[in-house]
């Protein structure tokens, strides 16, 4: 069994690092999701085009390879990143690309009549977005964002590969130090599961509030991630929450 000293010096801070990486990467990813997601619905073809290129490049890229590249190759271009920030930006950039599809899809699913009503009321483009489209699209975004957030949490395990001392890194240290692999990796898996569970609970709460804001009730879904398709994948018609929406 791992010593309690080891536990307090590596494992507990590791949990904290994992949480930090998740939060920072989620913040970066959210900013990119909305930025790129909105840009992909822009009136100007050049904006759509550039945003589309971003989306295709970072969706096609493996997060781990990008992370390695940022950590090992970027310094040679004169940009040395602290391991943690290399990891956070690689995750944020990748998952932001996935998230942009959620934002784009939910905005596209807002009924056209709503947008036309905004035009009829002589709202500016920005007013329409802020007062009409986003408030209605937001409840549709929350469930897929929950899935994406869990994907991101799982993705944070990758930062251990570029020497960020998250909990997976701590687990590997324990393995190297004591060779006690079974308890360590089992504990690790359980910890990730618990974190994912907490995220789901939090997002459910957010979903309930968001849906209440537009006078809806959340659908009943069992399990924690019943609707998948978080990473820009499409599911069979009728099962994707962002596409349909309730009238």
């Amino acid at each position, binding site marked *: 069994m791992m010593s309690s000293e080891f536990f307090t010096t590596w494992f507990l801070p590791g949990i904290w690092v994992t949480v930090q990486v998740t939060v920072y990467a989620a913040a970066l990813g959210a900013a990119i999701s909305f930025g790129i997601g909105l840009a992909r619905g822009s009136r100007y073809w050049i904006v759509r085009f550039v945003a589309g290129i971003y989306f295709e490049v970072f969706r096609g890229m493996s997060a781990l390879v990008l992370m390695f590249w940022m950590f090992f190759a970027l310094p040679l*271009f004169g940009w040395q990143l602290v391991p943690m920030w290399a990891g956070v930006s690689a995750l944020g950039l990748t998952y932001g690309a996935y998230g942009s599809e959620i934002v784009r899809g939910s905005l596209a699913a807002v009924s056209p009549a709503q947008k036309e009503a905004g035009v009829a009321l002589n709202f500016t483009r920005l007013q329409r977005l802020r007062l009409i489209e986003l408030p209605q699209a937001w409840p549709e975004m929350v469930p897929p964002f929950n899935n994406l957030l869990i994907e991101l949490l799982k993705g944070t395990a990758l930062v251990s590969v570029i020497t960020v001392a998250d909990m997976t890194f701590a687990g590997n240290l324990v393995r190297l130090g004591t060779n006690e692999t079974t308890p360590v990796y089992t504990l*690790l898996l359980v910890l990730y599961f618990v974190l994912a569970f907490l995220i789901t609970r939090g997002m459910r709460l957010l979903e309930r509030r968001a849906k209440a804001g537009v006078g809806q009730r959340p659908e009943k879904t069992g*399990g924690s991630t019943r609707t998948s398709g978080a990473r820009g994948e499409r599911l069979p018609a009728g099962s994707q929450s962002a596409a349909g929406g309730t009238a």
Partner: protein
Amino acid sequence: MSWDWNVVDDFMPRFWDGVLVTLQALAVGTLIAFALGLVWALAQRSGRVWVRWPVVAVTEFIRNTPLLVQLFFLFYVVPNFGPSMSPLTTGIVGLGLHYSTYTAEVYRAGIDGVPAGQWEAATALSLSKGRTWRVVILPQAIRRVVPPLGNYVIAMLKDSPMIATIGAFDMLGEAQTFSNETFTTEALTVVGVAFIVIAYPASLLIRALERRLVR
């Protein structure tokens, strides 16, 4: 800073080895994921609680924990009480197992998408349970699930470099060792570009497939 095409040239033979390993892992992993996913999906619909419950619990657990840690678990823990596998085999099993929990969801959605009338018609024709599944439900469900399954193949491709962390020589593994030996970084960039070059046409293909199959 500096980009040296000679380094890229030197890396090329090993790059192709890596591509081969990556594609191999992807192909076998995909087969496992597709087959096992269907098993999970059917088991989750089982009428017996003692079948349904454990399967739901296990798939939820696998889906909500990182593939990387699962790979470590398979590679370092499983040999303590089970078979000891080579890095590549472990990677393939890990990828297949992890993604089978996703494909299970896809199958589930596809099966749920078959109209209730089809089930009722099968009952009316007094088809046996096995025949109902084989000739009525699954053929209709498979059509719907092909595009999303394809998307998960792409997702799997992007997660496949993780098997390099347990010592398999896929694209990333080759690039890493090459970079460490030669103190260069061109190999990593080549691999990064290769991922986009493989993934983008693949996603276009899936989109085309989706237009043809769904509706």
